[in-house]
């Protein structure tokens, strides 16, 4: 598809998102905080309303019509996710609260796989959610907490990784796409390295799922996780995929209803996958509505989404660089639509405040990646992040408002 056709095609999307059709402080809203959370298409909102108006019931154990209907819809999303991720088995898909929940679960159930002196690896650019749980696990097990350094360009120092990741590495956990910089990391290579070292490989796909097609088979990682709310889906829902043989072997995480086969005062036996890892009433509404987000992404096509967002990124980056004393972080080719920058001697929070007054929603601060900013010699940035529904006009409004803000602050 040439760019004009693509732009034309994508232009229609915005009308599907009611939150984008509003003004703030009397100005049209330009929502560029998509890496924090995406807006939701009307079909997702409608699905939630429909669920509560027609199907609401607690799932799995019901003996009645509504319970069966909601169970069926709930399980349909699991099947759709198995297809989306190219999982071998649908029971490899585990629902929970979010990416943070997934990493905490993994760092707990992998506990007994780590021994004193082993190494647990992350990278210097990880989101705190994929950093602190591993740091704490290392502390607890007296293992070495190690990280792949980030180069000033925002890329991994893969040479370092090649030299240093040996068979003492038990777990290697990393993000596919950096939420702070938007860099797309060479995960295939790191997975290969980590697997040949015999480590468990955890891929944080939170910032990737809205932009790339995913095939957990060809990736050959052990675990892959993301949050629905960053993929045009509802809040409060995480998806964890894990290799069946591992999920079967590893211990349970949360104990309670549904994950139990038999409870007695003398002992308890656990249920099969996926129920083993889904105790308690799940976020039924979110799971069911998320199926609409999955269809939405499939219909629009992630290839189109990424191409369009990349076009916006390039356009915005060029315009941004015209501003004096501007630092654009990670201005490299391999990126999604995340633009992270600072203007010399101006605090990112000040820019954020003045952009906000002009209807432009961006995020400022450390974006939960403090080690990354320490490496880059600052404490944070202004981050504008694009989604499939953003337009070239959004970019224009953003750049104009940014110029005005910078002038006011100088």
């Amino acid at each position: 598809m040439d760019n004009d056709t693509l732009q034309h095609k994508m232009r229609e999307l915005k009308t599907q998102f009611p939150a984008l059709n509003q003004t703030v402080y009397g100005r049209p809203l330009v929502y560029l905080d998509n890496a924090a959370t995406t807006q939701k298409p009307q079909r997702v909102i409608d699905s939630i309303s429909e669920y509560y108006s027609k199907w609401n019931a607690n799932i799995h154990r019901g003996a009645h019509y509504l319970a069966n209907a909601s169970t069926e819809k709930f399980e349909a999303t699991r099947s759709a996710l198995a297809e989306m991720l190219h999982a071998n088995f649908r029971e490899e898909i585990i629902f929970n609260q979010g990416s943070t929940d997934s990493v905490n679960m993994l760092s707990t159930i992998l506990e007994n796989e780590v021994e004193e002196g082993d190494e647990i690896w992350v990278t210097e650019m990880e989101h705190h959610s994929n950093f602190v749980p591993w740091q704490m696990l290392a502390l607890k097990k007296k293992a070495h907490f190690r990280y792949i350094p980030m180069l000033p360009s925002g890329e991994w120092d893969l040479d370092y990784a090649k030299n240093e990741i040996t068979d003492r590495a038990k777990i290697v956990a990393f993000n596919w796409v950096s939420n702070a910089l938007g860099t797309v990391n060479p995960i295939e290579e790191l997975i290969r390295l980590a697997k040949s070292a015999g480590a468990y490989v955890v891929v944080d796909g939170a910032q990737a799922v809205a932009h790339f097609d995913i095939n957990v088979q060809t990736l050959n990682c052990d675990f892959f996780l993301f949050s629905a709310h960053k993929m045009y889906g509802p809040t409060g829902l995480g998806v964890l995929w894990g290799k069946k043989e591992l999920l079967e072997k590893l211990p349970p995480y949360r104990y309670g209803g549904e994950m139990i086969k038999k409870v007695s005062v003398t002992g308890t036996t656990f249920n099969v996958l996926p129920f083993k890892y889904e105790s308690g009433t799940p976020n039924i509404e979110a799971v069911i509505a998320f199926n609409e987000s999955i269809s939405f992404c499939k219909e629009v096509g992630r290839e189109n989404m990424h191409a369009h967002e990349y076009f916006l990124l390039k356009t915005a980056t060029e315009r941004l660089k015209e501003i004096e004393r501007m630092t654009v972080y990670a201005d490299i080719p391999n990126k999604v639509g995340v633009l992270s920058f600072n203007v010399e001697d101006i605090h990112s929070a000040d820019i954020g405040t003045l952009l906000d007054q002009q209807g432009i929603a961006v995020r400022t601060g450390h974006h939960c990646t403090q080690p990354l900013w320490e490496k880059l010699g600052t404490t944070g940035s202004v981050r504008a992040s694009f989604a499939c529904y953003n337009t070239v006009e959004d970019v224009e409004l953003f750049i104009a408002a940014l110029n005005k803000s910078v002038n006011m602050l100088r």
Partner: protein
Amino acid sequence: MIEQKQQEIIEEFAFFEEWMHKYEHIIELGKEMKGLTEEEKKDDLLVAGCQSKVWLKASLEENGTVKIEADSDAIITRGLVALVVSVFNHETPHEILNANIHFMNDIGLVSNLSQTRSNGLAAMVKQILLYATVFQAQQKSN
């Protein structure tokens, strides 16, 4: 043969206009089925996936067909189990493995009976196919 037995069931159920009569018939089937002895209803014969319990036993008969016996602790499930047994019983592993099982949908078992229960039946069918696979392998190696 399996297809023929399915057709018979479908015709039989087409007869009932009301849910009540359909269920009365299923309950009747449940009451009539021979089932398993108390000693046979052990955990190792349990089929997973059922809210009520389902036990299943399969063996290879001398003439090369499969003998299926089953039971449930709930009478409606027992009736449904009886239907499944009647379809598969005394068929060869080959026929079982090549059958297209559609009668449950056609008589409205999937939409009209609970998901949990039809899952239990699905688990039962899956188990029967598993047995058939094993028996077929045994036959070939003999």
